[in-house]
């Protein structure tokens, strides 16, 4: 079980190899990538930033919660920050479990929780030269996750 905020390109195959093992029958890799368009606007790149220390703490907390819900699961998550180009991977979630049902469920929970509460932000760069912070999520329910 490992998670990190990193400043280099993500290696999805390496993360997959990290969780695979003889006791697992299913490995699921989720890779989030930078799209060329968002809500109808042409995107040329995305700048990701994070509150690094807290982001890593939240990621570790998510993995602990998901591991408790799915006994025997192995997981690795990396989220990249910095300047990303179209097609670059921003996040990789690698999950392995003896059975596929648990592997799918764990994979989905990790990415949904990551998007809901890990302090990471992105600023899209558009073809017309403008930039905008993307406010994908409301803040309504996050505090309950804290103390």
């Amino acid at each position, binding site marked *: 079980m490992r998670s990190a905020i990193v400043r280099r390109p993500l290696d999805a195959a390496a993360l997959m190899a990290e969780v695979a093992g003889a006791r697992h029958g299913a490995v699921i890799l989720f890779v989030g990538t930078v799209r060329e368009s968002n809500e109808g606007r042409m995107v040329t790149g995305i700048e990701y930033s994070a509150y690094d220390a807290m982001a890593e703490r939240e990621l570790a907390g998510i993995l602990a919660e998901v591991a408790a819900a799915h006994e025997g699961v192995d997981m690795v998550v990396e989220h990249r920050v910095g300047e990303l180009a179209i097609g670059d991977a921003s996040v990789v979630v690698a999950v392995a479990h003896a059975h596929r049902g648990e592997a799918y469920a764990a994979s989905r929970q990790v990415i949904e929780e990551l998007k809901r509460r*890990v302090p*990471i932000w992105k600023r899209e760069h558009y073809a017309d030269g403008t930039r905008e912070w993307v406010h994908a*999520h*409301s803040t309504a329910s*996050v*505090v309950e996750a804290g*103390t």
Partner: protein
Amino acid sequence: MNVRVLLFASYADAAGVSELRVEVTPGATVGELVERVRQRLGSATLPPQPLVAVNQVYARADLRVAEADEVAIIPPVAGG
């Protein structure tokens, strides 16, 4: 007491700074600290009740802040 406050992303952009120190009365809550920050930076910089983390954990507005705490005002997150 003097508390360290971190700003990120759109909030740091709007404020023009990513870190500041704010003077509040001992025993002040997160909500009161945020109000002092808005007075300092201008009320257009931050919403009235932004998400706040104290020592890297999300905190409610009524949590009391201590001088050594690291307080962060967190814009809506957009990871993934």
